[in-house]
């Protein structure tokens, strides 16, 4: 699904450049629930931006759904994002003057789906995240947890290959954090590949695989107690 080989990325800072990712190798298969752990400055956000086609890498290879990502122009990147990726951001990033339903329907607009179909599908996904009754509300009438659930519905509405979540619980309290993580796990259990970036240990523990990043290199990559293969391994013992 997602394959990264010897990925490098530097940012220019004045005359110098900051080497953020120093040769990342990562393979994520379909249906995985992976978290990237790391303190700030470890390069995890940069990795997510590259994986999410929001930014370009300098060296190495990146295959998304078997397709080599190289020299993408804006138009092509936009099409691939729309087709394969769903985003969940820390600050929700809902459009303030659109209702929850319209926010969820927006990716379908860019996919070229007609309005009636759009709104119907969007409502289905809102129902899935338990916010059907809030469809007509503007983002500022929703709580943080509700906003994030709307954002998750928006990420899912195009039925992408991967959901990328950047600190999805960063702006939420612990109860809502659990709700959002439960929701992400449910989505994963339905077969969706979910890729979470976080610096919170509790959040990472709820995923099935934790990749730890430090100073631009992967320092560990292990399965958690939640993963099927881990359970199998425990059983075998």
């Amino acid at each position, binding site marked *: 699904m997602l394959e990264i080989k010897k990925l490098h990325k530097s940012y220019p800072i004045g005359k110098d450049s900051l080497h953020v990712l120093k040769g990342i190798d990562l393979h994520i298969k379909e249906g995985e629930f992976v978290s990237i752990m790391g303190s700030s400055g470890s390069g995890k956000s940069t990795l997510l*931006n590259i994986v*999410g086609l*929001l*930014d370009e890498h300098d060296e190495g290879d990146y295959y998304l759904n078997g397709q080599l990502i190289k020299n993408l122009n*804006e*138009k092509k990147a*936009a*099409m691939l*994002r*729309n*087709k394969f990726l769903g*985003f969940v*951001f820390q*600050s929700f*990033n*809902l*459009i303030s*003057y*659109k209702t929850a339903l*319209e926010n969820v329907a*927006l*990716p379908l*607009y*860019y*996919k070229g789906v007609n*309005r009636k179909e759009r709104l119907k599908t969007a409502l289905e996904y809102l129902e899935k995240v338990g916010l059907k009754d809030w469809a007509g509300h503007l983002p500022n009438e929703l709580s943080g947890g509700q906003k994030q659930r709307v954002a998750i519905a*928006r990420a899912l509405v*195009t039925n992408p290959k991967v959901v990328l979540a950047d600190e999805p619980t960063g702006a939420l309290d612990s109860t809502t954090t659990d709700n959002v993580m439960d929701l992400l796990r449910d989505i994963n259990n339905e077969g969706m590949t979910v890729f979470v970036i976080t610096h919170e240990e509790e959040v990472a523990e709820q995923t099935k695989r934790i990749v730890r990043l430090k100073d631009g290199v992967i320092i560990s990559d292990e399965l958690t107690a939640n993963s099927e293969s881990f359970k199998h391994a425990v059983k075998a013992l």
Partner: protein
Amino acid sequence: MFDLDRWREIFQSISKNKLRSVMSGFTVAFAILLFTLLFGVVNGLSNTFKDAFVDDAQNAIFISTGVTTKPYKGLQSGRRVQLKNKQYDFVKKAYKDKIELLTARVFKNANISYKNKQDNYSLRAVHPDHQFLEKTIIDEGRYINERDLKEKSKVIVIGRLVKKDIFGEKPAIGKRVNVNGISYKVVGVFSDSGGDREERQTYMPVTTAQALYGNNDHLGQIVLGYDQKLSLDEAIAFGNKMERDLRKKLSIHPDDQGAVRIMNMAEANKNVGVFMAILYVLVIIIGSGTLIAGIIGISNIMIFVIKERTKEFGIRKALGAQPSSIVGMVVQESVLITTLAGYLGLSLGTYFLSLIGNSLEEDYFIKDPSVSTAIVVGATITLILSGLIAGYLPAKKASKIKPIIALRAD
């Protein structure tokens, strides 16, 4: 291509951000309103000037004579110079390639009576071309013709008000009226845009008047219409040459200004033309300044708006919006606002101008202020283009920002 969804997005963005839309619209509407009013008022001024000459043909030259002020070739000063058929024939022959219309005028007073009605009117004895030089409009019957001239027919063409005075509502054509003791047949009734005074005139053949009143070949005035192909400068030169030639023919000192007087419409037209041209140049400078100020206003607002929406564009791009769709959306919104606001300003402007109407004619010389279609169309195109540019440039820049940077902007 009509894209209903795109329009929905735009209307939503406009209606959810009313203040911003109204602000940008107001700038444009106000600029266009001022522009329209300015042009309208100057057009009104121009109309007044044009009207001042509407009575007679624009290409008319009037030749009349007076008293000499300088002795010349043994003739004393103070001599009254009389125009005669000889001068008419000279003008006709000498300048035939530069003259379109030519008539003489003999001025008389006419005491006209019919049955028990009787009144005094002015009479002009003329050639047929006079009709076109004076812009006489024949309502009924006909004007003086060549045959009348040749036969010295006792026919008369009367003004609309003369007819009203003498015949009332009854038909006048074919009736015989008594003019200064001689019986004439009414062959035509006319009207004239020159006003009541012109419509109390009567016309008869110049030959008839010369034979019956005085039995001489005297003329009061010679009026001609120069060839319209002549430029104003050529027409003025032509008038000056004719003046010199006539002085020579009539034995008048070349520098004697009073004895032969030529009133050339070309000169008046040129003066008015120069004056109006200066006025228009001024208005174009001020008007385009106003438009430019409006355009800069909307560009500023668009730059601010796009800055404000950078994050929204970032979200849209993350969700799969292509840069072209962002640019298109912004440009379409900007063009829509400028066009609507411009149209509003234009409508308000024309409405105000129509309210003013002719009410300022007496005191301020502004008659029927209005703007021409060409100006309206030109201003509208300018607006749409400026809306396009005002939206396009900042939107293009915003669409190039990487979504990651746009999303970071809080």
